[in-house]
């Protein structure tokens, strides 16, 4: 067994277990933390597939930004009402099982019958190769240097704006 398969098995196990843990926890905050773990495991899988950029974006955007938003909303809202929702409406559970089974069968069919990794056209191969950090970094620092630098000023202006509008005291 080479190292890639070992890593794949470990990361896949972590991803699968954490997603099961996520949907079975009663406390919504703990669920959210398991979701973060799941995102990290998925990012590791993307790295194994040589899609470095997607892996980094997965960590920064999903595990970083979106999960923080989730956690804030969970802490601010009262999540008690959710239990009643599931007790009252049994139909939702069957509907969810149906959707999950449908997606599972679809993916299984694609993997075993469709074999997506065979018969790639040259453009598809090129687009897969462009997902590496080198290609993206080279583009960002040569042709797209202007939007890259402007995005820095955009974040700066947004920070200043947020501070001005949310500052507690007026001087």
């Amino acid at each position: 067994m080479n190292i890639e398969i070992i890593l794949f098995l470990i990361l896949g196990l972590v991803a699968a277990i954490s997603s099961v843990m996520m949907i079975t926890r009663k406390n919504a905050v703990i669920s959210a933390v398991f979701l973060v773990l799941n995102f990290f495991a998925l990012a590791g899988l993307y790295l194994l597939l040589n899609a470095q950029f997607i892996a980094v974006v997965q960590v920064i955007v999903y595990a970083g930004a979106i999960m923080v938003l989730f956690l804030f909303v969970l802490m601010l809202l009262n999540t008690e009402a959710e239990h009643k929702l599931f007790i009252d409406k049994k139909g939702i559970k069957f509907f969810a099982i149906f959707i999950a089974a449908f997606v599972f069968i679809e993916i299984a069919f694609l993997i075993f019958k469709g074999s997506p990794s065979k018969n790639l056209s040259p453009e598809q191969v090129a687009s897969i190769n462009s997902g590496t950090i080198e290609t993206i970094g080279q583009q960002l620092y040569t042709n797209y240097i202007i939007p890259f630098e402007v995005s820095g000023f955009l974040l700066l202006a947004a920070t200043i704006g947020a501070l001005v509008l949310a500052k507690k005291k007026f001087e």
Partner: protein
Amino acid sequence: MPANNYEYFLLLPHIVLSVGIVLSILIEIFTKKGKEILPWVSSIIFLFVGVYSLLTLDKNFLIFGGTVEVGGKAAIFNFIFNIAALLTVLTSIDYIKKYEIFYSEYYILIQSSVLGMMVMSMAHDIIVIFMGLELMSICFYVLAGLNRKRLSNNEAALKYFLLGSFATGFIVYGIALIYGITGATSIQNIFENFIQYSNNILFIVGMLLLLIGFSFKIAAVPFHMWVPDVYQGAATSVTGLMSTAGKAAAFSVLIIVLGSNLTYSSPIAFRNYFSIIALLSTLIGSIIAISQNNLKRMLAYSSIAHAGYMAIGLAAGNKYSFAGIVFYLAAYVFMNIGAFTIISIIEGKDETRLTLDSYAGLYKKNPFLAAMMSLFMFALAGIPPMAGFFGKYYVFFGAIQADLTWLAIIGVLSSVISVYFYLRVIVYIYFMNETEKFDIEKSLGGNLAISLTGLLVLFFGIFPDTFMNLITNFIK
């Protein structure tokens, strides 16, 4: 194409402004008198960048792999934005104390918004356009709501933010569709094969979404609902900048997008769209403005009408009309900022003196302001020899060249309607008796800004050829 290191040198105006933003933040952090120093720092930066851009007009290159253009029409737009910002800053020195937004962040945000506009006007790549647009818009959202204690400010900021992000959503979705079909973000690559792509319904939908988003930003009917409330609710100096430089930036993008179309393929692909926009904007803007008693609201509707006149030029889609739009934008920026500066001087501490009644008998109280207000109103109405006349003249001339005589006639008719509400202000100033007694504040910066704009409006009106020749050289 110039050598690689020289590319950065060509970006000197943008680099100076960016360094200025960071420098302003440092001044605010390390000195106690940041609020007093920053207006002068910003003024010097804007003056330098504006004049330097105008002096380097001839160095017209596409740099950084064809993503941005320096010199040429980008430089002309840089001049317009920076002079507009300079005038706004001069107005603001006294005004923001009265309006209780005396923060140094005010100037930093104005600088950032101007950087965004400059990025928009030099963009030849959809990603660059989008980044510039966002930088400008986010600064404007904050500037519109800078005074949190005022209900009108909060309303303006929230409406502007919600509808503005909605429009941005349209633009992003349009960009996604265009990229999906063409596989390119460069405007040149997209328009080289425009005719081939235009058979694809998704590409046309993407282009239309992009144009709809920008129609919102230029405040054209039917995407104008936010304009009166936002322009009325925001601080007057901010409104002056939003309604002029912000509109000019959005038009610069439309000129780049449709102007590239001029070079590569059929320039009239979106003629019907812009004809309808122009028809509705000119008529609805002019007619509703008649019934407005509040001056800021009246100027908001007049700004919708002006967007309509410029959209006539976009519908015509030839060299003359694009040059006409640039000239019109320059003239509009100066006359409108002048008018808003006078409003900001006359309005009271709690925006009590914004109606026409407050202007009754103004010529007895302050002959200078009265004369300048009349000058700007004549200019906005498009009466020669003021700059506004030649703006309309060039745009309508372009429309007639493009066999759009009916649209030019609609434009002239709506200008005639608009004369009524512009001249009504002058009637109040000179022929009505004073109804309320109040003292007009002294504002050195404001008076300086008014004199400068007045001179520019007269200069562009009396010698339109000097500026027009500059513009036509760079519209290809």
